[in-house]
């Protein structure tokens, strides 16, 4: 008998805030990644806690919170969560998998403020990262 696959965790927009557009983009990114990737679903189900993604060149941030069978994206930064911060363009290309987050942190283009729980930050990094198979651009270098 075939095992029934669990549906992906729900992705919901939480509290409104200044970064409403950024929250919608991040929520749609996570929703699409979870729909395509059982591995990302597993990580999203197991993770607990919140992560702030801060576009520090625009003073805008969102909070991604992992909970029971859902991921909530709030349009403002939580005060007590670990933070991944950097310019929006760098943040976007790292989230999209076009650049390595480790390389961006090593080059100090992104920085991490690791308040606990740090594991939520690692989970968010994986869940947000777009699979390489999606829409790679044509390299002109």
């Amino acid at each position, binding site marked *: 008998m075939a095992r029934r696959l669990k549906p992906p965790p729900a992705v919901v927009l939480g509290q409104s805030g*200044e*970064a*409403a*557009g*950024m*929250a*919608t*983009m*991040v929520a*749609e*990114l996570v929703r*699409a*990644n979870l729909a395509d990737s059982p591995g990302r679903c597993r990580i999203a189900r197991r993770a607990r806690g919140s992560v702030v993604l801060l*576009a520090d*060149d*625009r*003073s*805008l941030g969102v909070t991604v919170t992992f909970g029971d069978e859902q991921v909530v994206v709030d*349009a403002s930064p939580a005060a007590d969560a670990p933070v991944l911060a950097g310019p*929006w*363009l760098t943040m*976007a*290309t790292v*989230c*999209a*998998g*076009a650049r390595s987050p480790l390389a961006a942190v090593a080059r100090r283009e992104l920085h991490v403020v690791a308040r606990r729980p740090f594991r939520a930050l690692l989970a968010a990094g994986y869940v947000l990262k*777009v699979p390489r198979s*999606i*829409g*790679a*651009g*044509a*390299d*002109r*270098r």
Partner: protein
Amino acid sequence: MPDIYTSEWYDAVRDAINAGVGQLRSVPEGRFVVAVEVVGDGVSPYVDAATERRFLMEIDEGSCLWYRELAPDEDERAHLDGRVDYRFRGPATVFDEIAAGLLDPVDVALRGAIAVKGDMRLLLRNAEHVASLLEAYTNAVSTTWPLGQPPYAGAGPDPHGSLHQQGAATGA
């Protein structure tokens, strides 16, 4: 200098987009169609209140192939083989202020004043290209404003709240 929202102005924007694409390290593969919906808000003199101006644009390997403004009752599907990949919708005053260099389009999108619909994964993966497109729209074309230039007197000191906190376009 072309008037805003005329064929000449969109030709100039298209040329600016295509000139900018030549400077990019990578471009999105394939074709995609972008729809822009500029909604009359009773403040901008270029779009009547309770109406909207709609535009379609096709991008191929990063370059703008064509754009067209749709008539009010025209079905956008008549011009498409497939579907619209990205849709940008917002108040006319916001679009006008972006074109005048008063608002940063990336800031506007992140704050939600212009709604963006489409596959966010491709959009973020091609963020450098998107920034180049927006830069062309914002800063690359000298525009004339025959009915008056933003900021509009009737809009009050800050009609879009915190949108103006970041100042003029920062080049994304």
